[in-house]
């Protein structure tokens, strides 16, 4: 395996709400290899965004990181002070959150978003250089710099705004680009544009991409690795080809079968029965056991560890045995 650029160890995060505590990320362990593309897949409210927000330390005010470490280039980001964090944000790790439609300041032209970002990182570019750089990036995302740079956000369409955000994210050639649902809330054609764009970025640049999606088809198209999240836990991680050929976790099997059956249209769709777990009052043991046809007694009591299998994929399920002691906690 390649060197891990980002390493997450035992990360847990929760939200405090009136009704109690939402445990949205539990004991997460992840390694992201340099120059790889990883898709984080899961249903809505499975804790995908929380994981990313915890890693980038951008949880909403009621979110807390309760434990864990996030190593970027062997430094624990969670321990760094705000000023250090502010400096590595965007220069090293660029994170484009969901809700691209409202992420640009309505009172500022597009170009000023570039200018502010450059000036805030004390980079000595002249206004002209910033404009050049921004134009170059906008061309990369197939936008016409002449008109877009001097437009206000409300003059752009949803797909254009999403592309502006991606261009903005590439401003400092970051090592890691994190995207939360880059294609949701867009029409099919624009979705296809964005996917194509991300593919090009992946091909032409030294960049590590992590993106969140609930659309497993997009994950299949773009990602080298897929991380499946369920009920705030990582339940499976494998490379894309393997996971499609031979999904391990019963939930992943269900997920992949459900889209395969749509694609092949043979027999009736094999969707997963039941509802996703509440993160407020999660079931004990494996979070998937109430919906799992293979559930046994142990699944109701204990949370399975994420273990490494012989084919180097990882799964958190009692149906599998670890490949010779190499247990990830």
């Amino acid at each position, binding site marked *: 395996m390649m060197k891990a650029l980002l390493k997450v160890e035992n990360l847990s995060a929760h939200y405090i709400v009136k009704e109690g505590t939402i445990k949205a990320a539990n004991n997460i362990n992840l390694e992201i290899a340099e120059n790889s593309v990883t898709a984080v897949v899961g249903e809505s409210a499975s804790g995908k965004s929380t994981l990313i927000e915890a890693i*980038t330390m*951008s949880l909403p005010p009621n979110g807390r990181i309760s434990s864990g470490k996030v190593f970027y280039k062997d430094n624990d980001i969670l321990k760094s002070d705000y000023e250090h964090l*502010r*400096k*590595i*944000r*965007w*220069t090293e790790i*660029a*994170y*484009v*959150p969901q*809700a691209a439609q*409202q*992420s*640009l*300041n*309505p*009172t*500022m032209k597009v170009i*000023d*978003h570039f200018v*502010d*970002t450059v*000036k*805030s*990182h004390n980079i000595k570019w002249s206004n002209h250089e910033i404009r050049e750089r921004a134009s170059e990036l906008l061309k990369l995302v197939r936008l016409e710099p002449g008109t877009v740079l001097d437009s206000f956000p*409300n003059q752009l369409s949803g797909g254009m705004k999403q592309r502006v*955000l991606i261009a*903005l994210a590439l401003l400092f050639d970051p090592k890691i680009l994190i995207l939360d649902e880059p294609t949701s809330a867009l029409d099919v054609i624009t979705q296809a544009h964005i996917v194509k764009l991300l593919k090009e970025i992946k091909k032409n640049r030294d960049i590590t991409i992590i993106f969140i999606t609930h659309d497993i088809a997009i994950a299949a198209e773009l990602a080298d690795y897929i991380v499946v999240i369920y009920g705030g836990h990582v339940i499976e991680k494998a490379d894309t080809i393997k996971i499609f050929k031979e999904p391990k976790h019963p939930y992943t099997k269900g997920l992949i079968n459900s889209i395969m059956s749509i694609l092949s249209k043979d027999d009736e769709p094999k969707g997963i029965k039941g509802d996703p777990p509440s993160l407020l009052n999660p079931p004990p043991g494996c979070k998937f056991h109430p919906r799992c046809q293979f559930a046994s007694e142990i699944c109701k009591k204990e949370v399975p560890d994420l273990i490494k299998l012989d084919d180097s994929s990882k799964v958190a399920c009692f149906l599998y045995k670890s490949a010779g002691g190499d247990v990830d906690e």
Partner: protein
Amino acid sequence: MKFILNRLIYLLFVLFIAISGIFFLINKMPGDPAYGLAVSISQQRNMDINKALEIAHQMMGIDTGEPLFIRYVKFLNQFIRGNIGYSTYYQTTVNEIVAKSLPWTLLVVFISILISFIIGVYLGAFSAQKRGRAVDISISFVSSIIQAIPPFVLAVLILFVGAIKLRIIPLGGAYPVDMEPSLSMDFIISVIKHAIGPIVAISIPQIAVWTLAMRGNTPQIMEEDYIRFAMIRGVKDSTIARKYIRNNAILPLVASLAIAFGYMLGGNTLVESIFNYPGIGFYFGKAIALRDYGLLTGLFSLIVVGVIIATFLAEIIYSLIDPRVKVK
């Protein structure tokens, strides 16, 4: 475009109702609107009151034999031509009085609004940033206290402290009587000196209003996605506070700014009266005290016109800022 036209027609209708309202209110009153003028004429020229009444009616263009409705039509006709009435006390047209008083009111109102808006927006944004801390609590407390001071009371206090105790501002007028209006430095300085009292009296309550308004709509802005995205981009806090939070929080206030301007044309009556500052409000106060109904009708109509123009501007500004308004 249709929206703007609709609003314009609607506001003209409101203007018409307001002017008609005041006309009938005054003319339906028991007593003769020309009586006040007649008394002063009869005293000046030592004349019989009935004869003086006749002259007064002529001067004011009132034909008592005419039915009220005809007088109303004449009044409207004159109004549309821009002739908004005749002052019985000053024995001149209201237009003339407006011509010499409006510039002073505009000067005071314009400077006051500018000062109070800038200071209020700064204080409000600052207060919102420090929400819950001692500075914020004291700013809110002081603003509430200021709002509890009626403007005329504040004016009295400023006059007392500034003109009587400290003797730094004059007791009245827009410039010294012995000075010829010119563009000389001396004249400009003395104009500013005379305007300071009213400006401070108007600005202080306005600062409190803008501060509280700005402080009130800032938290909402801070929850917006673009604030979070700016933080994620590593934009400096000071830049976020200025360009992202403050500039967006100001937007809804810009429309109120136009309305405030309109209402201030007439809302300064007491302040201008207390400072003896010869603006619209001062003459309005005189017209009330002297029961000069011609002047009263004319000035009130002017004030309503001002408010209506301001409201109209505010609506246009608002529809530009918030596209959703147009749909309504």
